[in-house]
């Protein structure tokens, strides 16, 4: 497994895109810190990158990478290696490289400008979101044979989780605003990794908004460690659930 991961990592690092991605993150993070002296505000801006850019890049890059690795996967499949192992090696290597790019691109400036403590949840959420969208990319890659359709599906996942799903949640809370909806909203939000990551970051960066008069329930829930733990664990589950499903499909896939 480690051999495989090493080879795949080497392959990914050689494509210039990953370097480009790292540089992009690095430049925008440093730029934000340069433009604004208020670390809190910068963290909130970085939060938008984590919520929108990181999932988008992760899901598209991973899908393209998966299709570009078809040769490698085929080659490995004709060798005496477990299918699952090959698939997971691809997954781990892809996720690892993107997480590293994120940690270098966002984490280093954060440490350098002294926002690392306040931004620890940002780094965690960003890393987990990266893994979750690599995971979704792998799912869309095994769901269809066609590269273009897989990229389309990956983008659909991204659009769904960053925009459409929240619109649906908003519609629900609007329609049923006469009822106590706290628990329902919380459950709905838990079904979306992007929302979970967002709330986790807000717990650290913008608690004032969550602690507002939206009811004692949220305060009770988010004001304690339970809320943070609940969200973190769910986010981790989210990161791996799609790839577990994808593995099952890949097991039976014809290549």
């Amino acid at each position, binding site marked *: 497994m480690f051999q*495989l991961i090493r*080879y795949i990592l080497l392959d990914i690092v050689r494509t210039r895109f990953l370097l480009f991605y790292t540089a992009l993150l690095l430049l925008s993070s440093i730029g934000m810190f340069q433009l604004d002296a208020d670390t809190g505000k910068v963290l909130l801006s970085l939060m938008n990158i984590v919520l929108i850019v990181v999932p988008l890049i992760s899901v598209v890059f991973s899908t393209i990478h998966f299709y570009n*690795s078809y040769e*490698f996967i085929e080659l490995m499949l*004709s*060798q*005496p290696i477990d*299918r699952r192992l090959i698939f997971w090696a691809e997954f781990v290597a892809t996720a690892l490289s993107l997480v590293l790019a994120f940690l270098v691109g966002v984490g280093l400036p954060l440490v350098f400008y002294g926002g690392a403590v306040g931004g620890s949840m940002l780094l965690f959420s960003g890393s987990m979101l990266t893994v979750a969208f690599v995971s979704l990319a792998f799912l869309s890659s095994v769901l269809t044979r066609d590269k273009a359709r897989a990229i389309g599906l990956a983008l659909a996942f991204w659009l769904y989780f960053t925009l459409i799903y929240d619109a649906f949640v908003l519609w629900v809370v609007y329609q049923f605003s006469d009822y106590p909806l706290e628990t329902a909203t919380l459950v709905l939000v838990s079904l979306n990794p992007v929302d979970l990551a967002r709330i986790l970051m807000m717990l650290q960066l913008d608690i004032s908004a969550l602690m507002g008069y939206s009811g004692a329930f949220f305060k009770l829930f988010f004001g304690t460690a339970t809320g943070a733990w609940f969200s973190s664990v769910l986010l981790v589950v989210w990161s791996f659930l799609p790839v577990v499903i994808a593995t099952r499909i890949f097991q039976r896939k014809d290549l």
Partner: protein
Amino acid sequence: MISISDLDKKFGRLHVLRSLRLELEAGKAYALIGPNGSGKTTLLKCILGLVIPNEGEILVAGESVRNHWRYREKLGYMPQIGRYPGNMTIGQLFSMVSDVRKASTDRDEELYEAFQLEKMANKRMHTLSGGTRQKVSAALAFLFRPPVLILDEPTAGLDPVSVEILKDKIVREKENGRLIIISSHIMSDLDYLATDLVYLYEGELLFHDSIARLKAETGEERLGRAIAHLMQAHLPSNA
């Protein structure tokens, strides 16, 4: 060596293999032929575990293929079009495959040397010509001395000198008691290499016998003509 029973495979509505039964023995070289789309490559991929059959079973040396992977240690595969990670060099590719097969010693580097791949060890795969890539595929297939060799269009795209090197190698390995399956459209090559013929037509096994007997039955000297005979004999009844 390889025993295939009731093998059935559909791709959606397309019925690619229909209840195929086949016994392949060590020490023989099988020519796998048939028109385009007759299921040759699918059959090979089923044996390799790349394609999962809907029905039936494949045993390699008595071991079922389904959900297993260790049996692939016994297989060497040369694909029709060798596709390799583009950023890898030839040298890295060979060391990686050796790594994952955990076979650093006792490698058969005859083809690697004969094709002079050593000189190109630092070239990246995406810079290679189709022919060179075929050489890499061939060298990889034979590298670990597998008892079964599956060669999909092995001579396509190779220069004449290399074709001869490869053909000699195949003959030698056959004589070493390995089972060789060759899918090809080049009858002269098959005539030279194969001992037995497996003829697939629309996913069904049309003919399976030794080439010597086929020639004797049809009275033809050359394999190509013998097969033409064979097709004439079978096709009208099928059409």
